[in-house]
């Protein structure tokens, strides 16, 4: 069975009913499409029926200049070893999207994860706003590109104060006594 021919056939069927903006095969045995946000759940249902039964991952990309979030759904087909990647873009301000736990129940935890790290709300997933990894988080979601981890770390976790002059003098003394060599 040739999976590349299969993929082209599949894409042709999908294109008949849906508006597919981009179709690529980044790697062998990998198909990637970009779709409208309203079509995505239907496409995922269709793909699950065609053999992409495992949801490997849902993740999110922050395109801060476009002011968009991109949701990436990765599916895997165990019968021919093909990965299917479906992407869609949503608004960055008050991001909200529909949950796919009815199609893939395992999406529950990925959606909680994305809510925690990007702030995307998933309608239909009752648990999506419960904290998963970050306990008592009190700032904006940390994986957004406008979040500054260094500033947060300085504010919350104080660093050790070093006396720079003392360490400089210690190095000078060591050079004088020949314990270490000065770098040329």
């Amino acid at each position, binding site marked *: 069975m040739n999976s590349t021919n299969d993929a082209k056939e599949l894409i042709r069927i999908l294109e008949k009913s849906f508006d597919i903006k981009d179709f690529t095969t980044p790697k062998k045995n990998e198909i990637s499409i970009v779709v409208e946000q309203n079509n995505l759940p239907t496409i995922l249902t269709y793909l699950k029926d065609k053999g992409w039964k495992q949801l490997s991952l849902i993740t999110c990309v922050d395109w801060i200049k476009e002011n968009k979030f991109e949701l990436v759904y990765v599916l895997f087909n165990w019968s021919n070893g093909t990965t299917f990647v479906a992407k869609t873009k949503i608004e960055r301000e008050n991001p909200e999207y529909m949950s796919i736990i009815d199609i893939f129940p395992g999406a529950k935890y990925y959606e909680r994860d994305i809510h925690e790290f990007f702030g995307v709300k998933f309608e239909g997933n009752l648990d999506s706003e419960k904290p998963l990894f970050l306990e*008592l988080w*009190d*700032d904006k979601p*940390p994986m957004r590109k406008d*979040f500054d*981890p260094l500033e947060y*770390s300085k504010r919350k*976790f*104080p660093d050790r104060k070093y006396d720079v002059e003392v360490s400089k003098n210690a190095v000078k003394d060591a050079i004088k006594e020949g314990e270490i060599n000065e770098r040329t």
Partner: protein
Amino acid sequence: MNIFEEDLNDTITFWEKIKNIFRGKSLWMLHYCTGCGAVELPPTMTARFDMERLGMGPMATPRQADVLLITGYLSVKTLRRVIYTYEQMMTPKYLVGFGSCTINGGIYYDSYAVINRLDYYLPVDLYVAGCMPRPEAIMNTFKTLENMITKGEANGWKKYVENYDWYRNNQIRSLGEVYVKDEFHE
């Protein structure tokens, strides 16, 4: 050990010294691995370096352990559990920080989830430098810790009791609140 006339007369000091020698000779280490430094412990425990010849052994529960090892980076989520664990341990208790992450944050100095210095939250008796320290360095640390305990210099647990307010304020500042939320037992 030299026993002097004054020591024999001063019973508290004398018995404290005897106790310290025994404490140094049997250290039970809490088997709780917090970071990547924990990979150095299997070679230290097993045949090549054989930690047990120093009288140290792994122990599963905090209430029976003497030494708590913070092996490497410590995330905020883990720090809550570590504080609970440390407070459960019986005195005298000793805390050893492994690697540069516990000293000044190491490569996680700008992380939103990892603390920068351990002695701000819990009293550290001894640090091991390096990322990661070799098993030899760890054996050396355990030997140093043993000597410190025998001499009565490892007083982190006393410091924690005396300066509890300071430690508590620091913990609250960074963690918000020290309580462990357990979703699976709700």
